[in-house]
């Protein structure tokens, strides 16, 4: 029924186009070198955190050896001034740090999603009110507030998490709100309303899936914030000193004068771990940016392939 020059497109299904948009996002991430590096590092830390009780059974803060030993085959990262094994502390520390980071990340992002979606979807008074609250929280000086809050609530991971979420959600809410707002104004939302969909379904099934990358970016940024802020709080002695975490390791290192005594091995591992995790997350985050915004991608030297597009 067709001639040589007229063709129905269904006959030439292009394999590249048959992909789901979300899957191409994931595919983009997997093939992005930055993301790959970041994910490998993160994965390593997560595995380490999960395996910690197996690798170093028992209480990691147990005193097991002479104090302030340099790294040796017995204690790969030496011991603290109290005689605790630094490697055990570092490995176990990842549990609390990652846990807090991830919890804070998920919780802040979740609140951000709720606030952002509600704000954008309902608009008007709800939006005004929610934006006001968000902006007020944004303007509250974070670290001072953290310090004050952390001092007032009973210590414990719960408090740290609560405090970090309280100070951290507003940033994600603002980002997510503005994204949700721009999607809210898209016609497909109006179309869903016209077809009779209910509010909840529109927010979570129509708007949210289109924010995947920004949600992911916010999540990563929140996790980074959580890990860093936890470390800062704990370093100031405002965390739960009795748990083992990277921040607390550094707190104790400072307390025991690790730098003063030249015990760099007590001071360095936890700091580097924090940096590595944050760096890995940042890499993934930038990769997300690049995948969703191709303009940011690294420019390759153009190589003309003779396979011109089949028009």
């Amino acid at each position, binding site marked *: 029924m067709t001639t040589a020059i007229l063709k129905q497109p269904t006959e030439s299904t292009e394999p590249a186009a048959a992909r789901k948009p979300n899957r191409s996002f994931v595919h983009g991430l997997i093939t992005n070198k930055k993301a790959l590096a970041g994910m490998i590092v993160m994965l390593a830390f997560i595995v380490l955190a999960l395996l910690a009780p197996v690798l170093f059974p028992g209480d990691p803060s147990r*005193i097991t050896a002479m104090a302030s030993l340099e790294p040796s085959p017995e204690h790969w990262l030496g011991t603290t001034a109290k005689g605790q094994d630094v490697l055990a502390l570092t490995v176990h520390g990842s549990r609390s740090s990652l846990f807090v980071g991830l919890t804070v990340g998920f919780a802040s992002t979740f609140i951000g999603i709720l606030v952002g979606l509600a704000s954008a979807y309902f608009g008007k008074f709800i939006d005004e009110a929610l934006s006001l609250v968000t902006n007020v929280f944004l303007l509250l000086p974070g670290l001072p507030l953290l310090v004050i809050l952390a001092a007032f609530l009973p210590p414990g991971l719960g408090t740290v998490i609560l405090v970090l979420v309280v100070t951290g959600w507003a940033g994600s809410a603002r980002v997510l709100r503005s994204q949700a707002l721009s999607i809210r104004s898209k016609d497909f939302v109006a179309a869903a309303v016209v077809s009779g969909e209910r509010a909840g379904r529109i927010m979570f099934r129509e708007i949210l899936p289109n924010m995947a990358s920004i949600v992911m970016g916010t999540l990563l940024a929140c996790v980074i914030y959580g890990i860093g802020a936890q470390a800062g709080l704990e370093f100031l002695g405002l965390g739960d*000193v*009795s748990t083992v975490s990277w921040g607390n390791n550094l707190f104790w290192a400072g307390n025991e004068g690790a730098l003063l005594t030249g015990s760099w091995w007590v001071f360095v591992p936890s700091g580097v771990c924090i940096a590595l995790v944050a760096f890995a997350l940042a890499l993934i985050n930038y990769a997300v940016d690049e995948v969703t915004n191709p303009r940011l991608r690294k420019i390759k030297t153009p190589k003309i392939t003779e396979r011109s597009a089949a028009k």
Partner: protein
Amino acid sequence: TVNNSGGTDAAANANAFLTIPREDMGTFVQNFNPFAPAVNPMVQQSIYESLLIFNPAKGDTVPWLATEWKAAEDGKSVTFTLRDGVKWSDGQPLVADDVAYTFELQKKIKGGLEYLETVTAEGNTVTFNFNKPWSPALYEVGQLSILPKHIWSALADPEKDANATPVGTGPYTEVDSFQAQSFVLKKNTNYWQPEKQKIAGIKMLAFAGNDGANLAAANGDVDWAPQYIPNIEKTFVSKDKEHRQYWFPPTGAMINWQLNTTKAPFNDVDVRKALSMAVDRDQVTKIGMSGYAEPADCTGLSGNYETWKNNEVKDNCTWTKLDVQAANDLLDKAGYPKGADGKRTLKDGKPFEFKISVGATSSDWLSVANVISQNLAEVGVTAKVDSPDWAAVVAGYETGDFDSGIVWSANDPSPYKYFAAVMGTSTVKPVGTKTFDNYHRFGDTTADALLAEFAAESDESKQQDIANKLQEEYNDAAPLVPLFSGPEWGAFTDTRFTGWPTEDNPYATLSVRAPTTVLVLTTLEPRK
């Protein structure tokens, strides 16, 4: 870095200031009011002086603004004779009225001294009259900083005055180049012992924490390091073995692990003793206090009271020595059986579990608590370290809403207050009512009688006898778990100044906050 000039240049040393860090004040404010809740450094050490100085390192008492004193036979008064020729830094002479006025002001502003009825000044003597026989008063009144009446009586609101240019009798009173991060005190030109003002002045540096102060000490930027320095041999002494020394006499307060005796099972003396036996004090001091503290014994007295100790009690000590076996046996016997999982249960069947509360900022005590917790695990008892803010911890202590905690104790020249706060019923308040010293809420009537006797007795040797009995009572009742004598931190470098107190020459401790500090200030001299 300017002070790091080495110790050869005698002329430079003669002009140098004795540099001292203050590790817990990130910044200074120009407030030299001794009534301020957080008094600036050196106010009570080099600006104002007291009638006498008790030196816990040697256990002796040095007459200072008073040359002598005498307690009345009935123990209801004590009379001090003031030193002649003492002048305030503005040139006015120190008179007995100044002393009387100081106490009037003290009672008005800060309260306390409720036993003190009147202070009468007569010529160069001052008499303190009590409303009951009260021997512990001597050191309390004797060590209070004396203020000039002619200055303070002119102030409308003495407790709120910043007292920016203080007038005192001390060796270094002239405030100079005051900045938030440092200030200098220069010589008092009217000092009563000018031959002892051998250094040019004192320079205080503000630090936001031990770290900075320790760094300064390690770097040789300060002459005197009165703060806790971790691994001091390595971080401080080893950098200049010839000149640097430290000395941590155990003259601080006794640090106790106190158990809330209003709660089961801590109301059981066997439990208290068993828990005490389970604690490895060597490990506690080694890890928690870097090995600088001295483990406690059954007298419960710290090194400050070395001369008061009952040697019989001390030598036959059982429950302050590590003995896991005995601890287990005692707990078994007392009815706290070990379960199959190795954990003990209480009499009501609940697990033997409790919290040890310590303020979050006291990292050393946190380590102590952690060690105790580890030790207790050996006898099947679970102790969780709880470290909220100090204010929350203390609030719990005060109202009796806590399981156990690590707490300091009174540290006076006489052991009266110590024992009164540890076992006196007068200090016990019901749970819910605030108490300010006997947090563990333990009262013992036998101890009450002994304490009353002690207070009325002014003869030292008789006091000693009573103190011995108090220690026996303490040994029996184990009101709390003594851990170790708090060390008095102190280190110095003698590149620029010599004449420091040491273990061999303990004329004072190396504290910069104790009354004895002035003794050091008046002894040091520039290195020649």
